[in-house]
């Protein structure tokens, strides 16, 4: 079996240590080693965005990051978004706007939307659509997702 590396990183604000092979993606580490199964494997080649997480403040496809690359870095996943007793405003907005059906793309969309609102609290609809272009949804037709992000922006920047 391939040699494993020891990695220490911060995930959703907590220091986490894990062992992984060099070939394991961050997505595989999150799901298979740390049991954080919110990030989803869709295409596994950077097209669908279902695995989106925030790495040192930047949105990335976790399928295109190696687990070993996250040594000393900070990762935000969907699991870290809600307070124990309260959903994040983006999550509320997705529910209010019925911005999901099957739900497999949702954690990726929400993390992508969070990265957008972190850097641009009042995006235009055009900016939202281009920012989310790397996240695919085959159920909603996107309009409800875009409306949800617009509502969340109003909520969080109010």
């Amino acid at each position: 079996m391939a040699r494993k590396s020891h990695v220490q990183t911060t995930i959703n604000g907590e220091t986490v240590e894990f062992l992984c092979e060099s070939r394991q993606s961050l997505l595989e580490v999150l799901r298979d080693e740390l049991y954080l199964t919110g990030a989803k494997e869709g295409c596994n080649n950077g097209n669908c965005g279902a695995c989106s997480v925030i790495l040192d403040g930047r949105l990335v496809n976790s399928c295109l990051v190696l687990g070993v690359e996250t040594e000393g870095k900070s990762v935000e996943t969907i699991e870290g978004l809600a307070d124990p007793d309260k959903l994040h405003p983006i999550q509320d907005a997705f529910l209010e706007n019925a911005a999901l059906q099957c739900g497999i793309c949702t954690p990726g969309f929400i993390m992508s939307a969070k990265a957008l609102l972190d850097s641009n609290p009042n995006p235009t609809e055009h900016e939202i659509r281009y920012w989310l272009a790397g996240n695919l949804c085959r159920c909603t037709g996107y309009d409800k997702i875009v409306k949800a992000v617009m509502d969340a922006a109003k909520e969080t920047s109010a």
Partner: protein
Amino acid sequence: MQDFSYVAAQTLSEAVALLDENGEKARILAGGTDLIVNVREGRRDVDLMIDVKSVPEVNVLDYDANTGLTLGAAVECYKIYAVDAICDAYPGLIDATKIIGGTAIQGRAGVGGNLCNASPAADCIPPLIVLNTTCVIAGPNGERELPVEQFCTAPGQTALENGEMLVSLKIPAPASNSSSFYLRFIPRNEMDIAVVGAGASVTLDDAKETIVSARIALAAVAPTPLFAEEASTLLAGREVSDAAIDDAAQAAQAIARPISDMRGTAEQRTHLVGVLTRRALNGAIQRIRD
């Protein structure tokens, strides 16, 4: 995915020594948006990934209005278009950095990696060619420089010798009355690979009526991105006119040797070379005049 080793190099000499010792199955890892996919899908056989994101020389992003831009090979797209002075100086390069993949890709992928991946359809390479970019390459015998139009040698293949890596790209300061433009044809609005891409840089005289010099480059119409030399030089000294731009577009079409594939036919691509060359030239000229 196949098994491989991973090393995070801390210095340029360490990265070069590792490349030299491990032969052609060692690859430099920067953003990984092509490399990781290629290894996962069995298109690259790699047994060592050398992560260079901690090497200072590949992270340089330094623009000076007199000396130009030094762009480290691992600088991510989002960092480039965040600098207003770079956007003003090299709008054609910015056009490309903003359309490579989506937000998550632009957070990891860089211009240097786009070049080293050596796709015939790479969006960044035509702008680099028209901006007269020089590649700075480090290897076991020291550093050398190469004009970017000589860097790609075949699909996925580059002029890098065993043990060599791309360190940075040097782009001269833009001349006065000059600008650049890049565009591609895709059947969608975003998140796609060029059916054809065309870049142009133009320098006009002070009256902004006569072309002093121009450079045109094409993507996805040959095994490598192409510098359309004849199309470029025939514009020098010509007045800005539809006739001059049509002549350049025809000369660009003459060097295109596209294939037919799932993205488009050779005939469509040849037609597009004409359309996009005209638009790239007119786009650059419009930017000078604005």
